[in-house]
């Protein structure tokens, strides 16, 4: 039986259990008052019936592919035809599995046809076992819970305990995700650093992982050009666009604009943050980059690239405007009105008040906002993948092509992947650096903002 059908059957059994528990309760209790409402008795029995087998099924679905593979490898057919080389072996097994499931018609390797029946047979045996076990679990759970339904049974407390466990479990997903990210990045990076010296990676200046290297030669995993490209595009060019535009927009909308203008313009500017990055990337590559290349050629810059750092940085800056603007907006609004009124009462003009009082007072908040925006910009992928180049240049020329950490991650992980090569693992090492840097930026930014908020409260 397919997993989905089994799942539906279990849910159906749960409903049956729910109804039967209520019937039993009303028969036992009659007119007598029960401790818990019939609803809770129903849920108690239904949960006992459906949840254990469903948990079992989830576990089962995750472990059977491996078990089935082992069983197939042990068959005489497999012993005869399976190649000993691990990569070919797993490819053949995958093909046989796909063939057995009817996902593919004709295998690339004809031997897969020989293995497919063994696969289908083992799989169906395991499926049968799973169905039987799930049903046994369901009936056992039902029997246990059903016999406990009595008028004085505290079903509500039991159900609520399960609900609380579910709530706690849901919140643990966040920790699991964080652990998963850190563990997978660290693990793969560790494998990478066992092949490449971490110091060469962090401080080397030659990046060319795609090239084939002879033994003893520099493998080209020096990531400094990538770090520089990321900083150049994300933290310099993008911020040169985003900080003035974002800050001045926030100042104008909070201090000068009429409420009607503010009500309309603020959401309109926020659309800029909602446009998918792939759209910005396309816009940067197709519309902005040629204009910049032509402009550079017109002012006499010979080696202007059509994948310039400037095009990617400019468009990224536009994307970041709303982040800077809303953070600046919040921090200006948090400055106590008395400071502003005091300055105005002394005869300062609005702009003098803003420049000499409000912005200095709001500066920590603005700086925090800019740090968050930088962390956002350096983690941004699609704009740089589409508009910045692949050449790892260590240059400060905005018309030249530079590459970034995220671009290289995408570049390293597409195409033919062998999970064990230094090339693939380098992507995880870059990911680790990116993760750590954005995390630090966020922690520092939040601390700055928090301390500043406390100063005025």
């Amino acid at each position, binding site marked *: 039986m397919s997993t989905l059908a089994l799942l539906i059957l279990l849910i159906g059994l749960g409903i049956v259990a729910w109804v039967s528990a209520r019937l039993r309760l009303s028969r036992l209790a009659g007119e007598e008052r029960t401790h818990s409402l019939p609803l809770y008795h129903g849920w108690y029995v239904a949960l006992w019936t459906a949840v254990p087998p469903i948990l079992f099924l989830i576990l089962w679905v995750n472990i059977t592919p491996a078990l089935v593979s082992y069983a197939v490898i042990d068959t005489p057919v497999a012993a005869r035809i399976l190649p000993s080389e691990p990569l070919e072996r797993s490819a053949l097994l995958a093909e046989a599995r796909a063939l057995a499931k009817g996902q593919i018609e004709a295998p690339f390797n004809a031997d897969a046809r020989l293995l497919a029946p063994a696969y289908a047979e083992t799989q169906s045996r395991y499926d049968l076992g799973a169905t039987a076990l799930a049903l046994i679990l369901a009936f056992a759970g039902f029997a246990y819970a059903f016999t406990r339904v009595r008028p004085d049974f505290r079903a509500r407390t039991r159900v609520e305990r399960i609900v609380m466990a579910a709530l706690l479990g849901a919140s643990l997903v966040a920790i699991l995700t964080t652990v998963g990210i850190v563990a997978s990045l660290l693990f793969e990076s560790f494998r990478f650093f066992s092949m490449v010296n971490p110091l060469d990676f962090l401080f080397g200046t030659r990046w060319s992982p795609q090239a084939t290297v002879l033994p003893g030669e520099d493998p080209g995993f020096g990531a400094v050009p990538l770090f520089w490209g990321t900083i150049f595009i994300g933290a310099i060019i993008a911020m040169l666009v985003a900080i003035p535009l974002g800050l001045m927009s926030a100042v104008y*909308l909070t201090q000068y604009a009429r409420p009607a203008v503010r009500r309309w313009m603020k959401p*309109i500017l926020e659309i800029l943050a909602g446009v998918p990055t792939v759209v*910005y990337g396309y816009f940067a590559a197709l519309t902005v980059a040629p204009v910049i290349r032509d402009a550079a050629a017109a002012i006499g810059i010979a080696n202007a690239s059509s994948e310039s750092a400037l095009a990617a940085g400019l468009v990224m800056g536009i994307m970041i405007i709303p982040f800077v603007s809303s953070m600046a907006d919040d921090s200006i609004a948090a400055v106590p009105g008395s400071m502003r009124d005091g300055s105005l009462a002394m005869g300062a003009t609005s702009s003098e008040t803003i420049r000499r009082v409000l912005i200095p007072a709001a500066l920590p908040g603005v700086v925090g906002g800019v740090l968050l925006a930088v962390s956002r910009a350096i983690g941004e992928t699609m704009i740089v993948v589409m508009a910045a180049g692949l050449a790892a240049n260590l240059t400060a020329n905005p018309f030249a092509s530079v590459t970034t950490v995220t671009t290289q991650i995408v570049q390293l992980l597409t195409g033919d992947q062998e999970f064990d090569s230094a090339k693939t693992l380098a992507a995880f090492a870059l990911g680790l650096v990116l993760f750590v840097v954005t995390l630090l930026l966020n922690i520092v930014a939040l601390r700055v903002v928090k301390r500043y908020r406390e100063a005025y409260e």
Partner: protein
Amino acid sequence: MTGMVAQMPDRDRKVAERVPTDWKTGAMQTRIRRRYAAERRFRFMGLAAVVLSAAFLAFLLVTMLAQGLRGFTETRLALPIDFAAAGLEVTPAQLEQRGADAALASAGLERVVDNAAVAAFGPDGMDLISDTAWIRVGERLKADPGLLGGQAVIAVPASAGVDLAAKSGDTPLDARVAELRAQNRLTTGFAWGFLTGADSTDPTRVGIWGALKGSILTMVVTLLLAFPIGVLSAVYLEEYAPRNRWTDLIEVSINNLAAVPSIIFGLLGLAVFLATFQMPRSAALVGGLTLALMTMPVIVIAGRNAVKAVPPSIRDAALGIGASRVQVVFHHVIPLALPGILTGTIIGMARALGETAPLLMIGMRAFIAGPPGGFTSPATALPVQVFLWSDEVSRGFVEKTSAAIIVLLVFLLAMNGLAIYLRNKFEQRW
């Protein structure tokens, strides 16, 4: 008076003895004028920043619209076909049954159409009509089997070259297209194929449905996972969590996850779902799982704010009449917080819909020529499709890419509009 001044501290005496400023002097007037000019300049700079930012947005949208709207149209050629003379071995009855397509294909309709093109437009006729022209003719025949015995002029899709020459020019076929246009043989119509087809190597044959279906499947998985988990953990953290180290750890994790670059989630998906759990590559299931992990913190943060906004008096009242703590939350707090939670969910889903980088990491960038069959079959998603088409060399893909972007933006706009509507309609101020 002087005596009092003498008793004052030094600093105050200076203030008292200072001559009042004469605002009427020329120097002061110039100074004031300069300050006011600075004020006006500053104000203008602020306005310029707002206008410039909005102008970027307008320019972006107008560029996409200008390029993309053409992607929804196709150029058609009026092709006269003499079915009677061609001798198609198909009976009108066959056309009304199932399997009509196979019958037409085996009867050699494609050859008949190619011959008709050569007869109508000269030796290059076959290059002018699209490879799929005969399918369009077949549809027309199925709709009107009576045509088999006679002649008809059928508008068939033009080839990619003709389409490009007719729409933007600057191609080798320009002269030929001008000639056809002079003969009134070119028409333009809505490209239904774009809304129903999938990826292809020929820009006139590509469609958006394959990618859209992939996106929908991915979003279903994301929603089914991220929404319950997000809401439950928001409720837990806001209503039940004891103040201890574990709770702090959960909160820190959630806040950090919300700031982690999306590509890192892609690496997680690759290392955990694909490499460790051996899930299928390029599948909507894996894409949905990865995006769910990314969307969940957004929903948790929005959900916590919504739950926090429900006034304590509601909880007190419910507790007062004997509700348990679980009943308080599930019967009263969650229903009241639901509009806020839904708004946050929709915004998170909109972000997930536009996300590309994590999907590239788990291999949803393969060329897939048909809509995905299910959650585990290879699929692509709308933003990834935009990325893939933007990489194509053929010029015809430019308008198709922009058209796909328009479809994507329409979806995002609809989702955000729904979020704003929900917020305005159901938002309660206590």
